[in-house]
């Protein structure tokens, strides 16, 4: 009998997904409230894999161009997202966001996972994208970010330039398809329960408690 069960939580998300950062906060709060030991593993999900790394426009321009929305509509959407993020203590600044391709950021997350520091890297990438106005698409910028966290910059550059973790990213995407995941964030609890979206923390608290109880 396992007296201190650990619940495995697999989370599919993208670095440029505003709900994923909000969901991360809500999940963390729910997990803390549950008192359940959790093992979290982040998985790659590319929301817009065809976005150029050096896309020059703002998120407002991007959404207006891609979705045929008016700039007023997009501004209202982003203002609403910003307001919801603020409720979680996250100071989103869409005026500074660099819309980009996130595949290399996902590879960096796999690199960090191999070093046992994936959650730390996930937090750093989300913060630099939504709050600090950093670039998460270019290898040099990602290497600088990783070096700032204490990783070996040259090792990171080599890993990203060689595509060392490209297959791992693709496998995550394939696994998402096997689960039928169409949007993120998406949480798989102990390989059994699915939670879609940035649910309120109480939802995470309850399902983690339930999953831990079922292990007992």
């Amino acid at each position: 009998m396992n007296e201190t069960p650990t619940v495995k939580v697999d989370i599919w998300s993208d670095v440029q997904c505003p709900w994923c950062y909000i969901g991360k906060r809500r999940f963390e709060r729910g997990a803390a409230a549950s008192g359940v030991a959790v093992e979290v593993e982040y998985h790659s999900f590319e929301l817009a894999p065809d976005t150029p790394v050096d896309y020059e426009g703002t998120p407002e321009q991007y959404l207006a161009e891609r979705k045929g929305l008016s700039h007023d509509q997009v501004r209202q959407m982003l203002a609403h997202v910003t307001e919801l993020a603020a409720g979680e203590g996250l100071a989103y600044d869409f005026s500074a966001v660099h819309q980009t391709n996130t595949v290399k950021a996902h590879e960096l997350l796999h690199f960090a996972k191999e070093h046992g520091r994936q959650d730390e890297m996930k937090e750093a990438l989300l913060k630099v994208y939504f709050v600090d106005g950093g670039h998460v698409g270019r290898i040099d910028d990602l290497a600088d970010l990783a070096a700032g966290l204490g990783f070996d910059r040259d090792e990171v550059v080599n890993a990203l330039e060689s595509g060392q973790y490209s297959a791992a990213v693709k496998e995550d995407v394939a696994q998402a398809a096997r689960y039928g995941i169409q949007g993120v964030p998406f949480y798989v609890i102990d390989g059994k329960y699915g939670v879609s979206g940035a649910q309120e923390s109480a939802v995470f608290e309850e399902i983690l408690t339930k999953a831990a109880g079922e292990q007992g």
Partner: protein
Amino acid sequence: MTQTPDSAVDERLPLQMVGGTALVCEGDVCAVPDSVPEPESLPELDPAPVAGRSER
């Protein structure tokens, strides 16, 4: 946007869905609800596999 290939549909792994769907990004659009409902309690588990799309 990631698509589920037809060949994978029959191989989907079963999950019991919890909590409905809220605040999800699909493709390059993230649903922005006018208001976010407060959950009263954990909804009943849905034994159906993952399916459906988020609200827009």
